[in-house]
């Protein structure tokens, strides 16, 4: 068994021993070798170069994890929870959209999500857009306000909510069902775009979204809108799928030429 990893001389001895004495030998698949190599790369100094980008998990995802893992310890199957929509995978995508500051008042907002990592092999069982609404000093409108969500390239209403004027005094999350958007864009769902607007009462008069605490300026990571997608594996999933994807993304990161190129040579791999 020959690993593709360059083991750092400072790497723990334990790792080197594991590499040498691994029982799977030459019969192991290429993927398995890659996983072992990847583990050793990560254990060594190379990891610092590859995983510089730190992801801050959204509090909502942490709470999902906490709830379902606690249920699991009690012997309950998380997929039976109504909130999980019988999914065994829940993926969160952080909004990449920005408000156009030139537009004042802010009549419409676009929420953009890169969903290219969603697997076609998984059955989609639900999707919701969670938008954070900041607290404002006092009621900003005389009557109830209706917020409506549409796909960016369609006039088909996805979901709507009524907001009481008093709602604007306290912060909170608005949850909108966007499952239909996935059905509509089933063929090419690498990017999803939603458009939000708000109208006063039953009129068509659009309300400034800033007055509802929906503007995106100065928001922290935890306050960004997220698209939460619930999927169910059609067949038994294993950790190799995730490792395979990680290895691919690591490789593509390694293959990207450095922008500065200040005499840096690409890291050589020993086979």
């Amino acid at each position, binding site marked *: 068994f020959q690993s593709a990893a360059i083991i750092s001389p400072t790497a723990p001895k334990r790792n080197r021993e594991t590499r040498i004495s691994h029982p799977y030998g030459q019969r192991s698949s290429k993927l398995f070798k890659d996983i072992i190599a990847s583990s050793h790369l990560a254990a060594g100094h190379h990891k610092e170069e590859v995983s510089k980008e730190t992801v801050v998990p959204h509090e909502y995802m942490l709470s999902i*994890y906490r709830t379902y893992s606690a249920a699991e310890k009690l012997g309950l199957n998380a997929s039976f929870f109504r909130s999980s929509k019988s999914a065994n995978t829940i993926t969160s995508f952080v909004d990449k959209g920005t408000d156009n500051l030139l537009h004042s008042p802010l009549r419409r907002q676009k929420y953009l999500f890169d969903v290219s990592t969603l697997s076609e092999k998984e059955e989609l069982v639900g999707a919701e857009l969670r938008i954070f609404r900041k607290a404002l000093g006092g009621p900003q409108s005389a009557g109830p306000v209706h917020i409506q969500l549409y796909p960016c390239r369609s006039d088909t209403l996805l979901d709507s909510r009524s907001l009481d004027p008093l709602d604007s005094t306290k912060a909170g999350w608005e949850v909108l069902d966007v499952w239909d958007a996935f059905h509509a864009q089933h063929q090419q769902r690498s990017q999803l775009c939603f458009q939000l607007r708000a109208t006063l009462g039953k009129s068509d008069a659009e309300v400034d979204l800033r007055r509802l605490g929906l503007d995106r300026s100065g928001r922290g990571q935890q306050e960004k809108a997220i698209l939460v997608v619930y999927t169910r594996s059609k067949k038994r999933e294993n950790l190799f799928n995730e490792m395979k994807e990680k290895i691919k993304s690591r490789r593509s990161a390694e293959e990207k030429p450095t922008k500065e190129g200040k005499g840096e040579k690409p890291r050589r791999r020993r086979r």
Partner: protein
Amino acid sequence: TAPSNRHGKRHGKKSKYRCSKKALHVNFKELGWDDWIIAPLGYEAYHCEGVCDFPLRSHLEPTNHAIIQTLMNSMDPNSTPPSCCVPTKLSPISILFTDSGNNVVYKQYEEMVVEQCGCR
């Protein structure tokens, strides 16, 4: 037969190593997976270890094939190896991780924890 101990019970070396569930703590950091697994940091996976020798205990839930193989092994160890001590019941765990697009994903992975070992 194994020699009797002072309590009159047969307590041979083999009975000590009969197929059973043993501790196996998995630390994702030691595996180098902490760069994509957010939580948990590790978990108790357990593993199965020990011999499946004649006579097989019922709690090991042997398959009919394992019973035959064990019997054959007891009659002639050179002709047939003993049956294997393997996980017969596993349970899932929840994992929170980042995918290749740096999106945070919750996933329930099946068959991560050994609940029961048996002879197969």
